[in-house]
């Protein structure tokens, strides 16, 4: 029967070399036995359609062969949750910033739209690298079972989502104090900035920016000090942070569009060339406006999300522990 032989040939293709002959011989015997049984039952030779039905019931050649092969997978069920988590982290911390930066560069005219095509390359390289690393880990795990060697004492402490790390509060306080000192001493509403041979004259509107940025930095310092004393986020503190960030962001967006540089001079540069440089600085500042707006929106959304999180009751993981300890 040609059809049966074709079926056996198709199954054979997927089988491991050493077992091919043996498996196909047994399979062949079984199929012919089934056909003979049907022949006895019908009292005639089965038709082509009836043989087809027998083969169809056995399943497609690749599936039949697959049953004889060892179960294999690139990344197994043990590592898969970790693999998925890492992919998400890569997407969020690497690919998303990549998209935002490249989109910002294209919108501001600093790069051509062809740069967006590089996103696919970045995505494939990132996903491919992560997959390759996990495929290797899967092989290592299969041999060493390293995930089974764990110690409950090494589990991370219970996480309080509202708690701030004291070190980050101190760091933030130090950074804000430095910014206040630098801003109030070096940028004290100077209409003219002088750095050796470089002289920059700013527009009078700078006074507003000076006081505005000083105010937001002082408010941030106060918030950092409060966080050092009480290292927990509260809805009030989070709202305060949102307002400060929004104020600073609006000031920054205004600054980049304000044609802040009115005059520019450097020793050895003609006044015409200096005027061109001043214009170029203002133009470049104006071009980063879309990027600045996108950044502002992201910051505001993060701050707003924090407030929502704080107002949403969190399920308590420690309920069972309390029952045991009380």
């Amino acid at each position: 029967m040609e059809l049966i032989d074709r079926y056996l040939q198709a199954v054979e293709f997927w089988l491991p070399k050493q077992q091919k002959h043996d498996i196909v011989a047994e399979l062949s015997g079984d199929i012919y036995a089934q056909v003979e049984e049907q022949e006895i039952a019908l009292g005639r030779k089965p038709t082509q359609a009836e043989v087809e039905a027998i083969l169809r019931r056995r399943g497609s050649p690749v599936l039949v062969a697959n049953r004889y092969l060892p179960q294999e997978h690139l990344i197994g069920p043990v590592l898969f949750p970790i693999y998925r988590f890492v992919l998400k982290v890569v997407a969020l911390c690497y690919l998303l910033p990549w998209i935002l930066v490249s989109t910002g560069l294209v919108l501001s005219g600093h790069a051509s739209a062809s740069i967006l095509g590089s996103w696919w390359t970045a995505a494939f390289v990132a996903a491919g690298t992560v997959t390759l690393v996990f495929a290797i880990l899967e092989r290592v795990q299969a041999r060493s079972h390293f995930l089974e060697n764990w110690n409950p004492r090494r589990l991370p402490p219970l996480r309080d989502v509202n708690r701030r790390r004291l070190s980050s509060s101190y760091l933030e306080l130090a950074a804000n104090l430095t910014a206040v000192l630098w801003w109030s001493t070096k940028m004290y509403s100077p209409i003219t900035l002088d750095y050796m041979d470089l002289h920059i004259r700013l527009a009078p509107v700078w006074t507003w920016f000076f006081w505005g940025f000083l105010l937001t930095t002082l408010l941030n310092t106060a918030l950092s000090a409060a966080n050092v004393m009480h290292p927990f986020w509260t809805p009030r503190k989070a709202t305060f942070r949102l307002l400060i960030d929004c104020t600073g962001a609006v000031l920054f967006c205004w600054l980049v569009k304000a044609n802040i540089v009115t005059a520019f001079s450097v020793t050895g540069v003609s006044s015409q060339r200096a005027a061109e440089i001043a214009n170029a600085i203002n133009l470049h500042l104006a071009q980063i406006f879309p990027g600045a707006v996108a950044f502002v929106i992201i910051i505001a959304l993060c701050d707003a999300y924090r407030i929502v999180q704080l107002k949403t009751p969190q399920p308590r993981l420690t309920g069972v522990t309390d029952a045991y300890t009380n």
Partner: protein
Amino acid sequence: MNTELFENLRLELRRGCLVLAVLAALRQEQYGYTLRKILVERGMAIDESTLYPLLRRLETQGLLSSQWREQDKRNKRFYIVTAEGEQILERLLTEWNSMDLSLRAVLKEQDHGTNRSLSTSR
């Protein structure tokens, strides 16, 4: 009722029992085709694409041995349980009986609980 889910759970439940059934049936030498017929007749239906790889796996694990022989003018591969396979079968049957008893005890307990709650609610 979710038929697909039920079918998956049923297959999962049957998987271990099939090994027991195959080992038990192969206390007497059989070749694949007759073995499958015996199992079907005794209510343990198993398709060819499951049976033959299972036989091969059990042979690789040393629980079965096989040999090719001619019968009715056709070469057939005959399987029989090995001494090690017999020992494993005995242990598995003990385990299966113990699980059966435990499950029955759990079910009985639940039946009593249901009856109690029904009589209380009346």
